[in-house]
């Protein structure tokens, strides 16, 4: 079955350092979304990328979608303690029906040390 892997699994950074998580799908994706889950919370939508090679920015967050639409990355510049949580990518397989089934990645848990 389709798999969506993320690396690293865990990342501890000092506040102010940058952070990147990488997402890789075993199959081509129609689009990809990113979610953040705070400890004890539920996933919260951050962004969706649709086009091959697309780059989007939200303040300190930069999202990229690979040219082959099989990988993506999230980069956070100058992390803050509020960035703590688990970041999931969620890919919609090309062959998925119109219900927009999203397969979540394995997640990267970020801890920020003050």
């Amino acid at each position: 079955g389709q798999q969506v892997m993320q690396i690293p699994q865990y990342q501890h950074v000092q506040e102010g350092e940058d952070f990147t998580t990488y997402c890789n799908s075993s199959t081509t994706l129609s689009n990809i979304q990113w979610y953040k889950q705070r400890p004890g919370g539920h996933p919260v939508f951050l962004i969706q990328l649709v086009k091959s090679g697309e780059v989007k920015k939200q303040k300190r967050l930069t999202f990229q979608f690979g040219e082959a639409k099989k990988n993506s990355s999230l980069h956070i510049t100058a992390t803050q303690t509020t960035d703590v949580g688990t970041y999931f990518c969620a890919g919609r397989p090309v062959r998925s029906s119109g219900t927009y089934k999203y397969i979540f990645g394995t997640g990267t848990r970020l801890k920020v040390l003050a």
Partner: protein
Amino acid sequence: EPEVTQTPSHQVTQMGQEVILRCVPISNHLYFYWYRQILGQKVEFLVSFYNNEISEKSEIFDDQFSVERPDGSNFTLKIRSTKLEDSAMYFCATRREGGTGELFFGEGSRLTVL
């Protein structure tokens, strides 16, 4: 801001018992999903539901699971005979027609099977 609400927030049950988890979607959303997350692990797709029928389901969603929208508002997940490995956080998510494809997640229902 509209939100997805789930009940109960936590349910403890004995192995073999039936469990029903309930979700009230955001009012103008048409696509409904159940995901589950075993503690500390990734968010796993169970089933998607549209137009009063299942659209897609995963291998996890076997004959022990069922979903329905009995009264046009609540969206329920039933587990007929719970197993120890069903212990997890179950998230309901909904999506509206068009838009960004963003999934709006509820707070989750934690199921503990003893």
